[in-house]
C-alpha cells in the first residue's frame, strides 16, 4: 500500500494530462450535439487523422533535415496543420454525410448511422493509404527525456505541461469565442431555438458548418497531443479514444461545453486512479462503467440541462 501511495501523485499528473486531452476531444461531441442533437460517431476518426497530420508534419521536417527543431515552433506547426485538416474534414463530413439526411427530415437515427458508416470509411481509408502498421512519433527528438523536473517529489515532464497548457488555452479560447463574440452568440442561438435564430438573420447552415469546423479542429489538436504523448499511432486509435471522449462528454452533460471539460478531467483522473489501485487491464472497464452508470442514474450528466432532448425532435 505504501508503494501505491508513493506513485499516486505521479499517476494523478498523468491523469490530469490525459483528462485535459479527453476534454478537448469531448468538446467536439458536445458542440455538435448542442446544435444538431446528433452524436458524431466519426469524431474519433477525425481525432485519429489529426494525429496522422501531426505525424506527417514532423516526419517531413525530419526528412527535409530542417535544423534546429524546437517544440516552440514545431508543436504549433503540427497543431495548425492538424487542426485545419481535421476542421475541413469535419465540414466535409457534415456537408456530405449528415446534411443530406437531416435536411430531408430523417429521424435522429439517420445521421447517427451515417456517422458510424463515415467512421468505418475513414478508418479503412487511412489503413489503405497509410498502411495498417503503427507509425512512431519521434517525440524524443522534440522533448528530450531529460526535460523534466521535480515538483514536491513528483516528476513532471515538459511534454505533460505542454499538453495541459495547449488543451487549457484552446478550451479557454473556445469559451471566449462562444461566450463573448457575435459568432458564439449565433451558435448558442441556433442551439437554443434554430427557427428563431434564422428569424434573427442567422445563416443556420453556416453556423452548423462553423461548429463542425471548431469541434473537429479541437479533435485534431487532441490527436497531435496524444500522438506526442503515446508516441505510437495507428488507424484504429480513434475508436477507443473517441469512446472515452464520448464518455467524458456524457459524464459532464452532453451539449454543455464546461461539462465536456469537467467530464474529461474527471475521467482522466479516475482512469489514473484505476491504474494505480487496480489491475491496469481494468482501465477501460472502469471508464465504460462510468458511461453506463451516468446513462442509468444521471442521463443529463453533471452539468447537463434537465430538458429532455427527445422532446425537441
Amino acid at each position: 500500500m505504501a508503494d501505491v501511495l508513493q506513485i499516486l501523485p505521479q499517476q494523478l499528473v498523468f491523469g490530469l494530462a490525459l483528462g485535459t486531452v479527453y476534454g478537448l476531444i469531448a468538446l467536439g461531441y458536445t458542440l455538435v450535439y448542442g446544435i444538431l442533437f446528433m452524436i458524431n460517431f466519426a469524431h474519433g476518426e477525425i481525432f485519429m487523422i489529426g494525429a496522422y497530420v501531426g505525424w506527417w508534419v514532423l516526419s517531413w521536417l525530419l526528412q527535409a533535415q530542417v535544423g534546429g527543431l524546437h517544440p516552440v515552433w514545431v508543436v504549433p506547426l503540427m497543431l495548425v496543420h492538424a487542426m485545419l485538416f481535421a476542421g475541413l474534414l469535419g465540414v466535409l463530413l457534415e456537408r456530405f454525410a449528415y446534411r443530406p439526411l437531416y435536411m430531408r427530415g430523417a429521424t435522429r437515427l439517420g445521421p447517427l448511422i451515417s456517422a458510424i458508416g463515415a467512421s468505418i470509411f475513414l478508418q479503412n481509408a487511412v489503413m489503405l493509404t497509410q498502411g495498417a502498421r503503427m507509425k512512431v512519433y519521434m517525440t524524443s527528438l522534440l522533448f528530450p527525456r531529460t526535460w523534466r523536473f521535480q515538483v514536491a517529489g513528483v516528476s513532471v515532464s515538459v511534454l505533460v505541461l505542454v499538453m495541459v497548457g495547449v488543451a487549457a488555452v484552446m478550451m479557454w479560447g473556445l469559451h471566449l469565442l462562444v461566450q463573448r463574440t457575435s459568432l458564439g452568440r449565433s451558435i448558442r442561438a441556433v442551439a437554443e431555438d434554430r427557427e428563431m435564430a434564422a428569424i434573427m438573420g442567422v445563416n443556420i447552415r453556416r453556423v452548423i458548418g462553423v461548429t463542425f469546423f471548431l469541434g473537429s479542429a479541437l479533435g485534431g489538436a487532441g490527436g497531435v497531443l496524444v500522438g506526442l504523448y503515446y508516441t505510437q499511432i495507428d488507424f484504429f486509435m480513434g475508436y477507443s479514444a473517441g469512446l472515452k471522449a464520448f464518455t467524458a462528454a456524457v459524464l459532464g452533460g452532453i451539449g454543455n461545453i464546461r461539462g465536456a471539460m469537467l467530464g474529461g478531467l474527471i475521467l482522466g483522473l479516475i482512469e489514473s486512479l484505476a491504474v494505480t489501485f487496480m489491475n491496469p487491464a481494468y482501465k477501460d472497464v472502469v471508464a465504460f462503467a462510468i458511461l453506463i452508470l451516468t446513462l442509468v442514474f444521471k442521463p443529463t450528466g453533471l452539468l447537463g440541462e434537465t430538458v429532455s432532448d427527445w422532446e425537441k425532435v
Partner: protein
Amino acid sequence: MLKLVDVVTHYGPIRVLKAVNLEVRAGEIVCLLGGNASGKSTTMKTILGVVRPTAGTVEFEGQRIDRLPTESIVRRGISLVPEARRIFARMTVWENLAMGAFTRQKAPPGELAEDFERVYALFPRLSERQQQPGGTLSGGEQQMLAIGRALMARPRLLLMDEPSMGLAPALVDQVFDIIQAINRQGTTILVVEQNATVALSIASRGYVLQNGRIVVHDTAAALLGADHIRRAYLGEN
C-alpha cells in the same frame, strides 16, 4: 410594401392557407384577425420563409421574397415578435437584444448603442436587467424583450404574433400603446391578434382569416362597428 397574392401553404398534406390575399402599405398598422387554427401564425411564417408557400407570391417592397431563405428575407427589413415570445432563455437580456441586431453587425457601433438606448428608453425594466438571463424574466418582461429584440434590427416592417397573449389587462394596453409609438416612429406593422377590439382600435385596416382564407377585409373602424362580423368570425358576443 408587403403583398400576398393567392398564397397557399401546406404542412405536409394539410392545406393550411388556401388563398390568402393581403396587403400592407408603408406606414400602416394592419391587423390580421381570426380564431384558433385559422392560419394566422402560418401566414406570418410564410412571409418570413420559415415555411414555403406551395402557390402564390409574397412581395416585399416590389420584389418577390417567397423563394428566399429566411435570413435573406430578414435582412431586407422584416422582423418578427413571435407568438409566445420565444426569447433566448439562456442568454442575458443584453445578448438577446444583440441577437436582434445580428443583421446589422457592420453598422457603426455608435448606431447600435443608440438602438440599445432606444429600447431601454421604451422599456426601462430591461435596462435594469441587462445581465439577467432572459428565462428569469416575468412574462410581461419577456414580451418587452421580444419587442425590443425585434426593434434592434431597425425593421421597416414589424410582424407581431399575438403580442397581448398571456398578459395582464393593464399590460395589454401598455403594449398596444408601445406598438402605436413604434408605428409613429416610422415602422409599418402587421399585427396578428385574437383580441380584436384592442387590435382594431389602433389599426387602420383589418383582415379576417378563417380556415385559411381571408373572408373579410375592411377599415378598422368599419370592422369595429359591424356587430355581425364580430359575432360571426371573431367569436364575440
